């Protein structure tokens, strides 16, 4: 009896000790994955909103946790990666306060009306993230929403005092180490062993999202004179970018440089169709009658040598039965307002016609135009319809001419980035091609197809510019591929199907 009990206790002990099933080759074993030639123990990410994990028009906590650098850092942990700190916001609302006053709005969520029709809406609630109650930087994630290339080396870009007067960035001001510090210096002070640099998007994106409202500053080498929506001169870009790479590799760090995607890859520019005004034959005829005078005047302007015949053809207005191109103001057209006033037109009508044309198939109408198109801004004038009798303003259309400026500058930046990656033997992430492929073909993942279609495609958040967590996971995988190839590493990737897309919520 006694022996039996001893025997049983013995067996039980064996069972308890050896119960945990172990794999022959466990992923947690040292050497299962390989860091290759790189050292991931101290990874620092530099960049803009994309690096910060910005989404749905805001920077909020759960979005930051799904930033591509954070996803990469989690995967780096399999090959000796260390802690990865981020300047997390205080809540999931995303709005930003400056001394208790809200200066930036909350994130967008996907709401639905009683019929189940979805629409993006700002999330209700009072945010708690305040620029003034600073976080103690620097952080491994040095992504600063809104930053352009030269901002990373601009002293005072993180000055809390500068936020109010518009000379500083509120997100960087949250965690800048001093009023005069630069993003680059703060990042370099971390002595990274590995870095990623994805900067330059905003050097063209501000111009693009504002429908070309800014100035193409190519040729102007003084960025302190640039406005927020301007295109950065490629030489300025080259200077600041190479300074950043130099500072980051100074300590022997390896890293990856990421190039700038095309704006045509993102739903902010591809969701609203160029043809959006439905008219029946009678209405089209009536509208055309209104523009008969203008179309006639175009011939006289050509005859007078004010515009070319080519421009007249571009400016001619013609509505037809069916879905029409809306009318718009194109600032690249010859402004004939004064001439029309001289010809006896009232100044209001002359201004309306001064740079008027219809949208063309190669223009891009921005996402925010969807609420303007077809609207009647003055209820007392039911004939005043945006797109039909009131032109879409410049900010709503990125014309083909403006697209060319963006593409030219983007190509110049990318050539610089690729050159510096080669010169410094760093990884070069061709994010432009990756995103273009998602936009054109979609990316197959376990459980679906990731596309750039607004809301349903899964890649882009509700602001139409920034990725969803799933889009960021795709980004992280793309970069991990580059790192694995460049540094002979074998870092595991993530299953992007396990990352969410847009947040469903009714206020």
């Amino acid at each position, binding site marked *: 009896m006694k022996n039996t009990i001893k025997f049983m206790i013995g067996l039980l002990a064996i069972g308890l000790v050896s119960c945990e099933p172990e794999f022959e080759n466990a992923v947690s074993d040292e050497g299962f994955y390989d860091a290759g030639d790189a050292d991931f123990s101290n990874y620092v990410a530099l960049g803009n909103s994309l690096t910060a994990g910005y989404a749905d028009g805001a920077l909020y906590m759960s979005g930051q946790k799904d930033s591509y650098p954070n996803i990469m850092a989690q995967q780096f942990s399999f090959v000796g990666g260390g802690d990865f700190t981020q300047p997390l916001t205080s809540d999931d609302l995303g709005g930003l306060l400056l001394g208790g006053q809200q200066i930036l709005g909350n994130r967008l969520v996907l709401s639905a009306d009683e019929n189940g029709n979805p629409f993006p809406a700002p999330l209700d609630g009072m945010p708690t993230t305040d620029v003034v109650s600073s976080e103690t930087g620097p952080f491994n994630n040095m992504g600063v929403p809104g930053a352009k290339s030269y901002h990373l080396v601009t002293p005072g870009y993180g000055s809390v005092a500068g936020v109010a007067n518009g000379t500083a960035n509120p997100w960087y001001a949250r965690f800048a180490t001093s009023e005069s510090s630069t993003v680059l210096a703060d990042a370099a002070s971390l002595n990274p062993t590995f870095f990623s640099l994805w900067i330059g998007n905003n050097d063209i994106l501000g111009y693009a999202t504002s429908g070309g409202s800014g100035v193409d500053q190519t040729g102007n080498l003084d960025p302190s004179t640039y406005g927020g929506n301007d295109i950065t001169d490629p030489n300025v870009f080259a200077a600041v970018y190479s300074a950043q790479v130099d500072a980051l590799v100074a300590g022997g760090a390896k890293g990856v440089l990421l190039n700038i995607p095309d704006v045509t890859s993102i739903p902010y520019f591809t969701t609203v169709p160029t043809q959006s005004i439905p008219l029946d034959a009678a209405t089209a005829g009536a509208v055309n009658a209104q523009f008969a005078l203008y179309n006639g005047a175009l011939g006289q302007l050509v005859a007078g040598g004010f515009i070319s015949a080519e421009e007249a053809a571009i400016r001619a207005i013609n509505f037809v039965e069916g879905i029409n191109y809306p009318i718009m103001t194109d600032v690249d057209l010859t402004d004939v307002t004064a001439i029309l006033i001289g010809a006896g037109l009232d100044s209001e009508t002359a201004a309306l016609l001064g740079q008027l044309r219809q949208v063309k198939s190669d223009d891009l109408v921005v996402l925010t135009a969807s609420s303007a198109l077809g609207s009647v801004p003055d209820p007392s004038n039911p004939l005043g319809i945006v797109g039909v009798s009131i032109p879409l303003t410049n900010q709503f259309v990125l014309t083909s001419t403006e697209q060319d400026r963006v593409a030219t500058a983007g190509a110049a930046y990318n050539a610089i980035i690729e050159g510096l990656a080669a010169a410094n033997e760093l990884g070069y992430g061709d994010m432009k091609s990756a995103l273009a492929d998602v936009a054109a073909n979609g990316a197959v993942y376990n459980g679906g197809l990731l596309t750039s279609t607004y809301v*349903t495609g899964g890649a882009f958040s509700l602001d139409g510019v920034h990725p969803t967590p799933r889009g960021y996971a795709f980004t992280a995988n793309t970069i991990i591929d580059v790192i694995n190839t460049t540094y002979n590493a074998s870092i595991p990737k993530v299953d992007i199907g396990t990352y969410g897309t847009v947040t469903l919520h009714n206020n």
Partner: protein
Amino acid sequence: MKKVLLLTVLFLATAVTYAGGYRVSLQGNKALAMGHTGVAVINSSELVFFNPAGLVYLENKLSVSVGAHGVLADVSYQNSATGETAMTDGGVGTPFYAYVSYQANDWLAFGLGIYTPYGSTVTYQDDWAGSHLVNNIALQAIFVQPSVSVKITDKFSVGGGPIYATGGVNFNKNLNRTLVDLDGNRSEVTLEQTGISNWGWTASAMLKASENLTVGVNYRSEIILSAEDGDATFENVPNSPLTPFADTTFNADLPLPAELTMGLSYKHNDFLFAFDYNMTYWSAYESLAVVFGNDTPDSVLLRNYRDASTYRFGLQYEASESFTLRGGYYFDESPVQSGYFAPETPRNDSNGYTAGITFKVGSRLEIDASFLYLQFNEVDASYDYFVEGSGGPAGLINQYSSFGGTYKSSVFVPGLGITYKL
């Protein structure tokens, strides 16, 4: 005796049992020690389960067997493509049994058995990589089986009886791989129903072909546990008409499949050799279909199990007046088909190695101890039929995703019981 019964029932209140399919073959310490053979072994009142026809051949007027097993089961999971890992929380399951047989006369015997042939408890860490398939599941079923055994001739007997099954289920999973509420908490559902009962039956026959050779066959019918108006509780669901998940009732059927066993035993001096063949009709388990009481979209988890065989070998040696030694082996075929390997029943083929000892205390009482080591190979497997999206953006609906990786299970089962003969 009453105390022991009470104790086992109390054990059950916190019972966690190992998920193998969800059939738990631990219905007697003597039998388990011999590879869980017993359809042709005339040994004790364990026959109520293994072959009630044999009860009439027991030598004692009254025979009682009571016991329990402690199941130490764990499952490890890893995915080398992503680096994800998981391990079940190792609880101790305690399936139990109690059998009584009574010889009414020369040709008639009665029996009563209470046992737990089905059950499953698997607990993963909440929100683990496979949480859209299961966070945790606890399934329990108790069978109560009165039996009668009739000797037709000196060498041939038949037996059987009705089975009353009662059980409960508690199943928690996340709604899908990504749905979260505003604060990022994963949306989940808990299905709970207790006191589900149904009836089945068992029938068997035994032939003493010669002095040394015994042959037996036993069939136990399928019993479907039908949850009706169970509680479906949804948590962390976004406040949106696009995600219409509200607490409601649910109906679901879970089949406890039929099992056919054929076997023989051969006695030679102090040795007894036994062989059993089990066929479990798992093909009854086609899907776990959950029908909700309101507009909530129904959930269908395809299972497509196939019938599975088990081959059991046992050896008994009566070493002395006091000691009987036993050993055994069985090969247990998995009912899970390729592509349907779901983590709530992470079962691949296994090899069971068993041993045990019976110690006689006086002439009436025996103490039975057994030990089972169930050996699993690592298996690369996946469940390929999870339907993505439940009310999410339209493009995500009705798209299958796959969840897979490498699984490794380990199961140790020490057991202890007593046999009392009068």
